[in-house]
């Protein structure tokens, strides 16, 4: 079980889902704060769901408020960066680039990518935390 958890964790790094910021989170976990990483990740998902909803709402109003979209995405990118969510962060940046040039199609496409990466990481991290808990 422990080996499975370790394998999953390493895969997340190898496949580029997570970067060294995740290691920093792990370094901050100790006996006094044994669930710190999971808590931060949970917070990220609660926060980011709200941001995704905000983007979807903004996309419903035409003409698009690119500045607002960029603003929301900036927050999303910041949170992703804080937990080491490498792929999510990259897609957020890409979305911002499309926003900056007012590329509507690019934004729509990229927003799908953001949501996909966001969901994929969530699944993988949930599996990992599950295994890690069982391994203790």
């Amino acid at each position: 079980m422990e080996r499975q958890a370790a394998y999953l964790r390493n895969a997340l790094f190898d496949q580029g889902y997570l970067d060294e910021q995740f290691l920093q989170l792990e370094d901050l976990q100790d006996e006094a704060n044994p669930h710190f990483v999971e808590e931060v990740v949970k917070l990220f998902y609660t926060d980011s769901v709200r941001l995704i909803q905000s983007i979807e709402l903004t996309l419903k109003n035409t003409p698009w408020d690119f500045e607002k979209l960029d603003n929301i995405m900036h927050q999303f990118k910041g949170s992703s960066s804080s937990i080491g969510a490498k792929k999510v962060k990259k897609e957020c940046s890409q979305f911002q680039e499309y926003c900056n040039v007012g590329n509507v199609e690019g934004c729509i496409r990229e927003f799908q990518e953001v949501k996909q990466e966001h969901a994929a990481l969530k699944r993988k991290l949930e599996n990992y935390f599950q295994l890690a808990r069982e391994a203790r």
Partner: protein
Amino acid sequence: MVSARDEEEKHLFHVLAVDDSHIDRKLLERLLTFSSYQVTCVDSGDKALEYLGLVDIHQQNECERSSPLSSPSSATISCESISTKSEVSKVNLIMTDYSMPGISGYDLLKRIKDSSWKDVPVVVMSSENVPSRINMCLEGGAEEFLLKPVKLSDVEKIHSNLISSTNYNPCEENAIAEIEKSNNTKREGSEIDKNCSNGNKRKAAAATSLDLSDRRPRVQELPVS
């Protein structure tokens, strides 16, 4: 190697952390408590000003200028409300995000540097690497500018820069808070005295016991007994 005295002194070190992002506040709080500091987190520049008792700058300046006996009643009342607010524990360091809704980290920096808290070091953090922004903050009096996400090594670097800086003197900080605390204060007073008298020893300890390559040597290494 960190000495026991170092750890003990860190416990007296109070950081005010300002960030509108819930995740970044949680991260910063953990980074700081992991490093043995006391932390207070607020989610906006306005709340930070409130915490520091700087909400109404004009009235505060009025209080500082006029004598307590002859001041007009409105100024006296605001002095009292400010002194209640500044009964917060002293603040040794302020760490603020740059981009926040409402007042920005830069605006907060300027307000602090224009106030009785001006000697408290202010660190500005941002997820964006914009050289002109960084320069502006440093020129505005920021102690340091950190790129997010903030790491343990950043916190360690700041601490070592602060304690090795020849300008750093915890006794001179928070003049209003100290005056207000003169009653409450046996414990507070002795903590402040302790910090003062240990100042030199702390510098020596910092110079010899820390061995990270990015230290800026500002004091000569002294033998530690």
